[in-house]
């Protein structure tokens, strides 16, 4: 299948959009949750400080609209939040659990990896927690230090049974969150919190979904393929602009879903360009970029004109004062682009 040539359309947002509204990513998430609570009677939204609107305001005014039974605070226990959500979802209901920061998801690791991910498989399909979605803000934010900056997606991408999704802007955030909530499998939905307020877009007001497991070619190009997800896609778009000024054409791919991920789109692109850079904020060693690089190597080896490069966070805890040196910014990325082109 990987050899099959297929160009994807640049945007998966509904084409016949009737009305849009200016929303930041936070408002887009809020809108997706509102649609869910309105249309799905079984849905509940909960977590730490969710009732008053959440520390990032993503659940703002939902309690007022849908009542305290469906939008509520839980005690401060991530394993409790996810365990509770699993039990609720196991009754064929929709549970949207919020983990306040992805950095604090680890107490729930056992519940996610050993319980949510295996609930269907271990019962031979008798039971499932497909109605479970875990939202967690992730990534660098400029001042978050060790414990308000992490991108832990790779840990979860190592777990069969889970889906892992990360949007890059408000339009995708709304459509992908609705897809994640309605997907009949447990989904971890990482929200790059730097984008909550910094990115504003005309978001369709209607209810729409964007397919999971489908990467998106955000910018077509012919010389180098740049692969990222979440906020890093925006860095790669800036990288592509810098490269273009020097006459290098970059194709930028947003993976959108990390598990399962769309290798086909990546492989098709790299076969054309012969050069690939994968970039993420998380530490380089054993980051999800390693999986992408290995897959490119396996399927595009004879098309590659240079080694696959990974431009990622360094193998350190997330450093507060050195954040701008730690991050794989556009300068690091564009330098890699020129290295590859010169190779």
């Amino acid at each position: 299948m990987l050899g099959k040539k297929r160009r994807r359309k640049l945007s998966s947002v509904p084409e016949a959009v009737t009305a849009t509204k200016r929303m930041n990513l936070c408002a887009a998430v809020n809108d997706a949750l509102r649609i869910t609570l309105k249309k799905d009677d079984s849905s509940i939204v909960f977590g730490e400080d969710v009732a008053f609107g959440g520390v990032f305001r993503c659940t703002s005014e939902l309690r007022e609209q849908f009542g305290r039974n469906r939008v509520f605070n839980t005690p401060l226990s991530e394993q409790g939040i996810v365990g509770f959500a699993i039990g609720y979802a196991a009754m064929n209901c929709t549970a949207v659990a919020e983990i306040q920061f992805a950095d604090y998801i680890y107490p729930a690791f056992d519940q996610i990896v050993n319980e949510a991910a295996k609930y269907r498989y271990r019962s031979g399909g008798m039971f499932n927690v497909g109605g479970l979605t875990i939202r967690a803000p992730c990534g660098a934010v400029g001042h978050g230090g060790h414990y308000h900056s992490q991108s832990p997606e790779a840990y979860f991408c190592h777990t069969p049974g889970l889906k892992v999704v990360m949007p890059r802007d408000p339009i995708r955030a709304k459509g992908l969150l609705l897809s994640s909530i309605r997907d009949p499998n447990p989904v971890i939905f990482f929200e790059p919190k730097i984008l909550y307020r910094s990115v504003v877009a005309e978001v369709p007001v209607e209810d729409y979904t964007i397919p999971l497991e489908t990467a998106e070619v955000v910018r077509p190009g012919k010389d180098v393929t740049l692969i990222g997800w979440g906020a890093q896609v925006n860095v790669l778009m800036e990288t592509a602009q810098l490269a273009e000024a020097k006459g290098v054409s970059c194709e930028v791919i947003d993976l959108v879903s990390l598990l399962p991920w769309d290798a086909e789109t990546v492989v098709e692109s790299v076969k054309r360009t012969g050069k690939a850079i994968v970039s993420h904020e998380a530490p380089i060693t054993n980051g999800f970029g390693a999986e992408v690089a290995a897959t490119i190597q396996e399927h595009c080896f004879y098309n590659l004109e240079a080694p696959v490069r990974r431009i990622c966070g360094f193998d350190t805890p997330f450093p507060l004062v050195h954040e701008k040196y730690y991050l794989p910014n556009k300068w690091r990325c564009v330098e890699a682009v020129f290295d590859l082109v010169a190779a």
Partner: protein
Amino acid sequence: MPTETRKEVYKTMVRTSVMDDIFYLAQRQGRISFYMTCSGEEASVVASAAALNQSDEVFAQYREQGLFLWRGFGLDEVANQCCSTTKDPGKGRQMPVHYGSKELHVHTISSPLGTQLPHAVGAAYHMKLKEEKRIAACYFGEGASSEGDFHAALNFASTLQCPVLFLCRNNGYAISTPTEEQYHGDGVLSRGQGYGIDALRVDGNDAIAVYAAVSDARSKCLSTQSPVLLELVTYRSGHHSTSDDSTRYRDPDELQSVGHQLSAIDRFRAYLYDRKLWTDQEDREFRDHVRAECLHALEAAERERKPPVTGMMSDVYETVPKHLHEQQYAALHQMGVDDL
């Protein structure tokens, strides 16, 4: 406990015990890979199961096979699960004793300890929102009560007011660790009180006491839409599992004195004899009958086919994703199966 229920509870306790003996020995003979007995805890499990409603959603640990039997899980189903056959609804994917039944409202057992407690709370929250006239019942051991999930679950159940019944089988041991090294303070009971949950300690080897306590607790859960914790004090008279040898850490004298003295089955049988509800002959005949039924189920399961390798990739997700299709194709190709 109604008279007829007494006999049925006793019979299911015996059924559980006879089944355990046979499957334990079957493991020793290499016929199944692993087994865990419920020895000594039959009253805690079966009498509590009898006091629940059949539609109550159960989240159990791994020593509650008596509850499965009470709800109608067949010995053939036990054997098929333990032998990982095509007739195991779990499709042979889990070690023996990890039963589950959607029809019987018992969620499939998983090995990690304590993880099922917050699940029961979430399920109970659903019942509360939908105003269903049923509860979630959650079994676990005193060892599991040291896990974080136990504490999270009690706290969530209390603050969110969920109709969930926590049933702790305090059997004295978590594998080799005795209760003195598991917790200090007043047992598991006191944790319930600490979380604002009504809690009661019960003689878990007294079937009638267990039944009465669980009946009351269940009514309270339903009428107040809030949690209750019961600590059923019992005794694990068997090994932790077939991978364990309890003589390495438990004085055989203790087993002789405490274990036999507390035997739930002996006590309940004496009670039934005393009231002329059951006779020695009936007891012998019933045991023989169950033994024959078990052996038959085991032999039949041994003749069953194992689940096809093509099933390895199903149920990871609701539908098999592309990358698993490819892996399955590659695996079967390697095995020389190309005709898919």
